[in-house]
């Protein structure tokens, strides 16, 4: 069992999101990402070549994944660390809980990790009586709210500063009521003070990993706040949780990927802190964790190799696809109902939790193609969503109305003469009916569509017949 999905209720989620004025107000901020990414890409002449390089590194590593994981494991062990393997979420939770219990841990600080969300780690820690504190500012805010991240790199993008002030006043009991918390600056100062004490008191620090380097047995994390570093250097033990596809061959390969990661994510040339961690504290080290563990999670990924969705394993979790997605921009991340939102979530979710649960997500695309245009590792996201739609249809999981509509269309599409005749007829009829205004404000059975816009009345004839008339060459 992984994090609970509301994905099967996608349609209801979307409806709620679109009518939620507070959410719609907050989502405006998500649009800032696109301009920043474009500027960062334009500033680096080698950016497109780096995307090709990043893609090639990922493809090469995936094709040799067993061997790179072996090499990585060997180097971690050599440096005094421990590697644990987990086939699924439950196994990963058990390993981490056992490690924490063995260390007598009462409190755990956490760097931002989507894998941790995927395995529902916080709930498991709390159930075991261990305090789990998210330390990324956005993650901390949503943890106080009892929510899940709505974006993979900006988890609290759906929350306004007013909301944060209320959350802090509720959670931080010793806050004087007259203390000014109206602006982000004061909210950050408050969070910094509260979390600093948590960092210093924690027994175990848990982080994710952006990359695992086979050459050196190193885990790499990228943050802007420095929270991931305070999480891993202060407690007695550092536990890394990472999925199998995070491994890369060498430090040079990590550098290629880092060059596209920050630019694609926040539009920075480099994130503030890129940290390479190898094993536990050395004999002469005056600080750092005494124990270093890596939990490597499969959770369905090994089955994606060699199949139609293998390309998805190239993903480096930058969030560019959702930042550029008109659907994500309209509904936010929670509507997707599981851990990963946006186009990458629409492809990955059915792979990891099944098409029966997650099959609706690939329908949430206009196929505008912006996600693939900006993906730093060039994942063909629209194609893969199309692939999922076919599978959903083949397995008769799509709603009856959709199936009936597609069936009706297929009947005509397979009979070209009939199709031309029928569409010609409809075009003429609509042209006549819409003669007055040239558009329709309402159409029977399509009220949901015309509520937000008018349908332009067609020209007298169809595109096909106009094309035929113009070129005379199309059969």
């Amino acid at each position: 069992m992984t994090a609970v999905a509301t994905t099967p209720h996608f349609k209801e989620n979307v409806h709620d999101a679109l009518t939620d004025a507070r959410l719609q107000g907050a989502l405006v901020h998500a649009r800032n990402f696109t301009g920043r990414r474009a500027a960062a890409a334009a500033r680096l002449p080698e950016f497109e070549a780096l995307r090709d390089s990043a893609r090639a590194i990922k493809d090469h590593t995936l094709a040799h994944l067993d061997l790179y994981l072996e090499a990585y494991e060997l180097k971690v062990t050599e440096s005094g660390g421990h590697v644990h393997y987990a086939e699924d979420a439950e196994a990963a939770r058990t390993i981490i809980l056992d490690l924490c219990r063995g260390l007598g841990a009462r409190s755990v600080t956490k760097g931002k990790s989507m894998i941790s969300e995927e395995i529902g780690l916080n709930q498991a820690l709390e159930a075991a009586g261990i305090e789990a504190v998210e330390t990324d500012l956005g993650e901390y805010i949503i943890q106080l709210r009892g929510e899940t991240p709505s974006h993979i790199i900006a988890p609290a993008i759906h929350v306004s500063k007013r909301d944060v002030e209320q959350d802090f006043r509720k959670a931080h009991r010793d806050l004087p009521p007259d203390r000014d918390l109206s602006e982000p600056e004061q909210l950050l100062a408050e969070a910094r003070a509260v979390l600093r004490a948590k960092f210093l008191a924690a027994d175990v620090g848990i982080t994710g990993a952006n990359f695992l380097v086979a050459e050196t047995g190193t885990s790499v994390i990228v943050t802007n706040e420095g929270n991931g570093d305070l999480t891993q250097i202060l407690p007695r033990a550092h536990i890394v949780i990472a999925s199998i596809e995070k491994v890369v061959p060498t430090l040079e390969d990590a550098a290629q990927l880092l060059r596209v990661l920050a630019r694609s994510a926040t539009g920075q040339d480099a994130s503030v802190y890129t940290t390479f961690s190898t094993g536990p504290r050395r004999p002469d080290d005056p600080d750092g964790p005494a124990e270093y563990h890596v939990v490597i999670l499969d959770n369905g990924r090994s089955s994606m190799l060699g199949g139609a969705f293998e390309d998805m394993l190239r993903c480096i979790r930058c969030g560019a696809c959702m930042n550029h997605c008109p659907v994500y921009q309209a509904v936010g991340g929670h509507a997707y109902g599981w851990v990963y939102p946006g186009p990458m979530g629409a492809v990955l979710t059915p792979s990891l939790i099944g098409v029966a649960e997650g099959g609706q997500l690939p329908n949430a695309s206009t196929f505008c193609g912006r996600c693939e245009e900006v993906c730093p590792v060039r994942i063909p996201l629209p194609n893969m969503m199309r692939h999922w739609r076919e599978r959903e249809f083949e397995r008769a999981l799509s709603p009856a109305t959709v199936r009936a509509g597609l069936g009706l269309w297929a009947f005509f599409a397979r009979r070209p003469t009939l199709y031309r005749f029928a569409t010609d007829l409809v075009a003429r009829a609509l042209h006549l009916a819409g003669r007055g205004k040239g558009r329709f404000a309402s159409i029977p059975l399509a009220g949901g569509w015309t509520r937000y816009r008018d349908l332009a009345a067609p020209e007298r004839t169809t595109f096909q017949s106009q094309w035929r008339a113009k070129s005379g060459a199309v059969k």
Partner: protein
Amino acid sequence: MNARDAIFANIRRSLGVTGAEATRRFEVERRIAEAPAGVVPKRGQGDLPARIATFKAEAERSQASVAEVDSLADAPAEVARFLRDSNGPATVRMGADPRLDALPWGETALEISSGPSDGHDVNAVSMALAGIAETGTLALVSGADNPTTLNFLPDNHIVVVRREDIVADYESAFARLRSVYGKGGAPRTLNLVTGPSRSADIEQTLLLGAHGPRRLHIVVAG
């Protein structure tokens, strides 16, 4: 079958391989041994003065401040000036780096203490392994010389980097790392630091000083 074996078996089944193929093993060993560089941006390249100019400009873009001094011996006076101007206390925490230890701190009014940070230090001074011109990034390695806690807990982090340690790109910094730790080796922690700590998690408003240092001051010493 334990979890490790099950995962490896499933990876190999999906890839249609056994794991024993000599060509695949050779390919992987060669890639790790040769560590090909890939695409390296031109931005950081050039002779030393050009690299220093790029380093300075890029570091300032990331909201770090940068000062150049003629020699390492001038670094303490620059540290004292920076702390005076930022109205901080005249105390500094640093590790056991012999290059820092040898400097004339006694000629300043600074109160120096030595060792890692427990969270109560306002100012820290570190020595960088390298400065990376490409993105104005500092490469800092853990150890008794420069404890990692100094990079994150104090409010003001001052980093001294020697002119000749300003390299063009990440790949050159890795080469320096390997010259110290050997190929395939690494310190417990390598921190690549680009500017002071920040967050934009509340309404995408960018603020400095999230959990780490509020100010990062770089002293490039000749």
